[in-house]
């Protein structure tokens, strides 16, 4: 029983990081219908920007903010100058996916060329450990959970309570109709990629803090569970991605706690497949779409 409670706690901590990244990924996809595989390498970039800042005495949480801003800007650049022109020229969605894969590989090699292939770390973790309802979490894990919750709430308020959010949702639902209503959809796309890129950057640094040790492969490795979380929640649905992140995180930890740890990720992906067989649009796919049209 104790291990069960502990594993749920570990899963929430891991899920918070996944949720951060999955929400950003889902917002990008929902807004532009582009499956952006470069996302993983951008997370890696964020982890190394964080390292660069921390090595120069910047507080890790300030480094997270810095990396978020930098990767947000990089995401806008990627979309505006590479992906959007391809989409405008009528490039097939599959070809655009391949372009994002290629861009991710190029970015990964640039990172290796600059920072080297060796494992890196933000340093020895010496924070306090918290015991809550039988769960054990480090100070940094608690901070990441709080941060993820705050960012998710902020995104929720942005999407539902602001003109910008309504414009984003309108653009996501029907770009041409949104344009005819006077919405500058290009600007809205830039804002969406900025926000999702910032979440990607925050997730990259949060991941590096959680894993403690990382190298150039950190982002691409975590991209798959992150996409799984987004798909589980209903691709393009930010709220679904939040829940999907938690489900994948908790399922992985429970599998590690009660089965052969080597197969922990297999169990998580097995759940994903079963879930999609039962609900092909993901946990929140249909419901959120309905709300989106009615809001």
């Amino acid at each position, binding site marked *: 029983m104790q291990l069960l409670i502990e594993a749920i706690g570990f899963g929430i901590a891991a899920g918070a990081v996944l949720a951060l990244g999955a929400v950003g990924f889902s917002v990008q996809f929902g807004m532009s219908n582009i499956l952006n595989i470069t996302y993983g390498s951008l997370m890696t970039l964020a982890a190394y920007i964080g390292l660069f800042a921390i090595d120069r005495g910047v507080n890790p949480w300030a480094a997270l903010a810095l990396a978020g801003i930098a990767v947000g800007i990089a995401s806008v650049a990627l979309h505006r100058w590479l992906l959007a022109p391809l989409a405008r020229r009528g490039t097939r969605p599959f070809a655009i996916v391949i372009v994002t894969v290629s861009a991710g590989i190029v970015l990964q090699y640039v990172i290796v060329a600059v920072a080297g292939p*060796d494992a890196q770390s933000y340093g020895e973790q010496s924070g306090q450990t918290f015991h809550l309802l039988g769960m054990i979490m480090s100070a940094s894990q608690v901070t990441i959970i709080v941060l993820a919750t705050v960012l998710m709430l902020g995104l929720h308020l942005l999407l539902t309570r602001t003109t910008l959010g309504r414009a984003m949702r309108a653009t996501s639902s029907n770009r041409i109709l949104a344009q005819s209503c006077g919405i500058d959809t290009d600007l809205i796309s830039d804002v969406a990629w900025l926000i999702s890129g910032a979440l990607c950057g925050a997730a990259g640094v949060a991941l590096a803090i*959680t894993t*403690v040790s990382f190298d150039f492969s950190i982002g691409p490795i975590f991209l798959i569970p992150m996409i799984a979380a987004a798909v589980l929640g209903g691709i393009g649905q930010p709220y679904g991605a939040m829940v999907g992140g938690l489900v994948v995180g908790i399922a992985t930890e429970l599998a590690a706690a009660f089965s052969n740890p080597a197969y922990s990720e297999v169990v998580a992906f097995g759940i994903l497949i079963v879930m999609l067989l039962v609900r092909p649009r993901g946990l929140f796919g249909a419901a959120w779409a309905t709300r989106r049209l009615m809001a």
Partner: protein
Amino acid sequence: MGTLKSRLVSPLALGAVFLMVACGGGGGTTIPTQTGPLSLGVIAPFTGPAAEFGKLLSAPCVAATDLINAAGGISGHQIACTSIDDTGDAADAVPNVTRAIATTTNLDMAIGLESNTAATTVPLVNAAKIPFFTTNGLTSFTKNNLQYYYRMTPGDDANGAAFAVWAVRQGYKNIDIVFQNNIGSEGNLPGLNAAMPKLGGKIVNQYTIPADAASYSSEVARVIADKPDALIWSADPQTTATFMSSYKQLNNGVLPAMVTATDSLTPDFFNAVKKVVGVQYVTQSIWLVGSYFDQTTPAFNTYKAALLADAKTHDIAPVLSTVGPPAGAYDGINIMALAMIMAHSTVGSVYNADVLKIVLPKAGAVVVGNYADGKAALALGKQIQYVGVLGQPAFDQYHNSAGEFDANKFNADGSATQVGTISGAQVIGLLA
């Protein structure tokens, strides 16, 4: 009729002779010759998560080729290392190695072919008739019928048994095994499972963990609940650092001792783990077990001096000179080079027959520990017996020479100190 027959036979016979000469036949064999520098393939991961291996295996190649070229090369040929990137992934290794074999000029010897990809790369190189000294530990090669294969490092099962011997000798009777899910690590399990009970120890639990996961907290919680005296460990630097950091966090700062392979005796492993759990733990509580070799012999001194002399290997020399597989690769290069001289050919299918003759103990032979001495003795028409950095090789019928074992500890600067030896006979006995 007889006359007609003889008139008919003569032109046929002449034609046959002409054909035989033209085709290089005539009942004898022509030894192929090569021109230009020779290539020594270092088949290892140079990119990807296991890229550290490529760096480690390039160094003995640099050291050996520096010495060979300084001694005038092999039968007039200079020799150069050629990096062949197997990426540590069989899917990439097969096309990369196949392409290298097809396109590399005078690729006459190879080293490397480590465990992650050996199952696919070893047959390729063997089929190309290129003699090679592999550093893989796969137990599937403990018995084989590969003509061009040689291994001077122990199989993974023997390494596993050596881990058990050292753990029990340190008083660690209750151990947990934590291995990353790769083929090399898994190969240690049979040896550990066979040896531990015979030594009076107990394996409390064994875990296989995925590499580079976001969290190992649940796995760590299970290990902590087992209360092991020590962990028998095998994982890459990043996985190790993440796991041990979590262990420290969840166990109030207390970490168990660790027995692992000398494969981890790398700057990357040392730095990654030191950064997250501190240098004191890394230098005091991690034992690294692997192939033993005497670090006072002339052969070793030549090897270490060569590593220190080249700018490409100078920095890594202190670590490298304590690790078995690279030393085995260095010895292998010398053995193959001397076999080329003995066979008067640089072609693998020809000189391969002389590889074992170079190391075979024989009365009256000149014992040599480096290429230059061996070359000089052969030039004088003497028989030689190569006893290199790893000592006297004792190849069995499958071209495996396991040798002895030792245990090492990290120093604060990342170099290593040998702290004890383990008898190879004891290890093999535990596997029986």
